[in-house]
């Protein structure tokens, strides 16, 4: 990186910058773009579930490959839910919370000048951008993007004839994921090194904001868990192209033709995938948990109740998240003994989670609240964590999971706790740190309106899915009403879709607020929220590192 600050051009200041603040904002803006794609995919999925035999003339003109005379093609539907999940989990939420907020805030919150390895940091971002492009490129392959679910279970994902989208689209998915994981591994290394080694002298770990602690645990989780998916993806690529059979058992017959190869196990993929997959959902959850605790502290004027317990709870949650992955596989045919073991760990992980909820209540009890927009989002996360966490306990019991696995109940659960809490964390963080990023405040009225509408429509969209799941609505189904017993759910599904549309429209308020406030927001002082944490002791907008 060149020395002085005077004569550096646009490219090195704003594009190929090594400054963690620029990199953080690059992640955030890219994630926002990917969110538009992910959200559009969700709306198309909901459109199909609500009205399966409807002719969508207008949409089919915009996306002709996905429709046949206005009727959505089943393979297109499969690609939609696959790419929605993949894009939202990795390219939106992970990128925004960890790449975005993590990069911007960690050095500031620990009192360091920048991340430990600024070049590696910039490289992480550019690899993430390339991985996003590869993932989006898969939409434009002749047989379409991956369509085997974000979980990519073989043999469906391994055998090219098993579904359209299991051709080049699946390969590009695997390549994009490998690149994404590389980006996050580099990022995780940076986070750990910075938090552990570059803290301002005298700043103890137990002085750090809970957001920084969350980033610390996220980095560890990522470094230890992602390699499992990397290995699995390479093995899947080999099965697809090199004649190996890691995941392909002997004796398969696809469409009447014998499948070559054998000796492999599809369950092996599930173990490898979920060994990452479960910590991944905690990677998504932890930043919001940290943000909520910190915001409760700032906007009640006192430190969160039981700070040390909150740290230990996060540590326990993180550690135990490595021991629960099999709860995704209770009905897979794996050993029932394993099932019991995973039920134990899964149910017990609710203990530290419960501790956090009780400590949050104590952090709010009888305290004066400043109901700023960031605080509203934090309160929303509190609600979502309780609601979504409770349904998780149901699913962690093996006998209940028999009835609810692969139904809309699971979809409700993870959208409320993971997607919802992570998403609300993004909104909380953007509103809260906007003055730090850009020197201005976002508009409070617009912020409050956006929050209230999102809170209402988010629950309106996802809560009814619990009921649909209890009544047996299966997941990933292009037309649920092929089954007579699901026909009574038609009006509920239509309601959910309209709520989702309202939810999507409400997000316009956020985008308007964000971009308008960039230019016209009220100028903020150096610490508009009177927060006690270190990131606010810098002048804002932050000066560049010399």
């Amino acid at each position, binding site marked *: 990186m060149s020395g002085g600050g005077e004569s550096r051009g646009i490219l090195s200041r704003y594009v190929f910058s090594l400054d963690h603040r620029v990199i953080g904002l690059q992640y955030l803006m890219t994630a926002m773009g990917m969110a538009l794609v992910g959200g559009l995919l969700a709306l198309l999925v909901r459109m199909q579930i609500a009205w399966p035999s409807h002719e969508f003339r207008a949409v089919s003109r915009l996306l002709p490959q996905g429709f046949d005379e206005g009727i959505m093609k089943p393979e297109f539907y499969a690609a939609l839910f696959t790419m929605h999940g993949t894009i939202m989990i990795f390219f939106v939420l992970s990128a925004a919370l960890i790449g975005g907020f993590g990069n911007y805030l960690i050095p500031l919150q620990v009192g360091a000048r920048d991340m430990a390895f600024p070049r590696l940091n910039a490289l992480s971002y550019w690899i993430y951008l390339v991985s996003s492009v590869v993932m989006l490129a898969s939409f434009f392959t002749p047989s379409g993007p991956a369509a085997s679910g974000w979980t990519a279970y073989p043999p469906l994902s391994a055998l090219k004839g098993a579904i359209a989208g299991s051709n080049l689209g699946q390969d590009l998915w695997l390549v994009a994921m490998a690149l994404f994981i590389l980006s996050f591994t580099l990022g995780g290394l940076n986070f750990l090194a910075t938090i552990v080694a570059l803290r301002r002298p005298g700043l103890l770990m137990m002085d750090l904001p809970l957001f920084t602690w969350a980033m610390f645990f996220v980095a560890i989780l990522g470094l230890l868990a992602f390699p499992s998916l990397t290995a699995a993806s390479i093995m899947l690529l080999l099965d697809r192209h090199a004649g190996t059979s890691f995941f392909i058992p002997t004796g398969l017959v696809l469409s009447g033709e014998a499948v070559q190869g054998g000796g492999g196990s599809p369950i092996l993929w599930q173990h490898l995938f979920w060994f990452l997959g479960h910590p991944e959902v905690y990677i998504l959850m932890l930043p919001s948990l940290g943000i909520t605790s910190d915001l409760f502290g700032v906007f009640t004027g006192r430190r969160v109740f039981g700070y040390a317990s909150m740290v230990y709870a996060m540590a326990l949650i993180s550690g135990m998240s490595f021991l629960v992955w099999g709860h995704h596989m209770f*009905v897979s045919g794996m050993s029932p003994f394993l099932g019991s073991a995973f039920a134990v760990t899964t149910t017990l992980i609710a203990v530290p989670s419960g501790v956090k909820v009780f400590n949050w209540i104590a952090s709010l009890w009888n305290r004066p609240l400043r109901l700023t927009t960031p605080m509203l989002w934090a309160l929303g996360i509190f609600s979502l964590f309780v609601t979504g966490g409770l349904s998780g306990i149901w699913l962690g019991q*093996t006998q209940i999971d028999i009835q609810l696995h692969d139904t809309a109940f699971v979809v409700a659960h993870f959208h409320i706790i993971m997607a919802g809490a992570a998403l609300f964390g993004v909104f909380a963080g953007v509103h809260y740190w906007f003055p730090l990023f850009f020197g201005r405040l976002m508009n409070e009225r617009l912020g409050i309106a956006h929050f209230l509408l999102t809170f209402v429509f988010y629950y309106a969209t996802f809560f009814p899915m619990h009921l649909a799941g209890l009544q047996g609505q299966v997941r990933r189904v292009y037309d649920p009403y092929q089954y007579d017993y699901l026909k009574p759910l038609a009006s509920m599904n239509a309601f959910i879709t309209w709520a989702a549309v309202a939810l999507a429209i409400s997000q316009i308020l956020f985008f308007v607020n964000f971009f308008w406030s960039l230019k016209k927001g009220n100028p903020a002082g150096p610490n508009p929220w009177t927060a006690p944490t270190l990131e606010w002791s810098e002048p804002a907008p932050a000066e560049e590192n010399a």
Partner: protein
Amino acid sequence: MSFEAPKNGGALARLFAFLTAAFVAWSAYALATSSLPPLAANRGRIDSAIALNLVISGIVFLGAHVALLLVLLRRPREARIPHENARVEMLWTALTAIVLVALLVNSELDSRALAGGSTDPGAEPPVVVEVVAQQFAWNFRLPGEDGIFGRTDPRLVDQAELNFIGLDRKDPAAEDDIILPQGLLVLPEGREVRVRLRSLDVIHSFFVAPFRVKRDAMPGIATEFTFTPTLSGRFELACAEHCGLGHYRMRGMVEVVPKADWAARLKEAVQ
């Protein structure tokens, strides 16, 4: 700060509290009055477990949200702010752990009860059924008088000859196998059914909601599970694992008939 943020008890707090209360009331009512499809097998322990969880999580759901409402609506009282209190923390941690362990023990007991078949030596032998899933249909066969399933071989699969599972007709044990029409399973009411579940191609999942039965059809292995239908009727079988573009139309039908009518109905179905 350049503006006064809204406080507890103010207009915004009341609005947010109202919306929260409305959501909580509606969702609690909806869940409390929700139902599973009518139970048609001897697996009601799942229903009781769900009911138990509904009560426990309902209490926590309501409690946490009532706390949120109170926090929003009440004027804060400086003197009553809770301070760090290790004893209280240990108490609520222990309480949470106790409730969860109780649910776990219940889950383990239920799972064992549900997995085991009848141990009564005088009971009728179970009806053994092999279910073979494929893109996009269900194949069913019974072993016949000899109680032995005939050999199958993937190389013998011949869709044109309607030999979907690759039955080796030269195997003597295959002679009396009863192959049902694709998608239709006929079972007697009140007799234990033991299912051997396989897949020809990708992962499928055998799900009959009224029976409270779900198991993945995992290529490469044959898994077994058991249940006893307790009601006569026609029950739809759904595939519960994404298996390709026809996943949504992998519908089967399980017809449960009174014991006395079963043999005749089977014969009729096979014709």
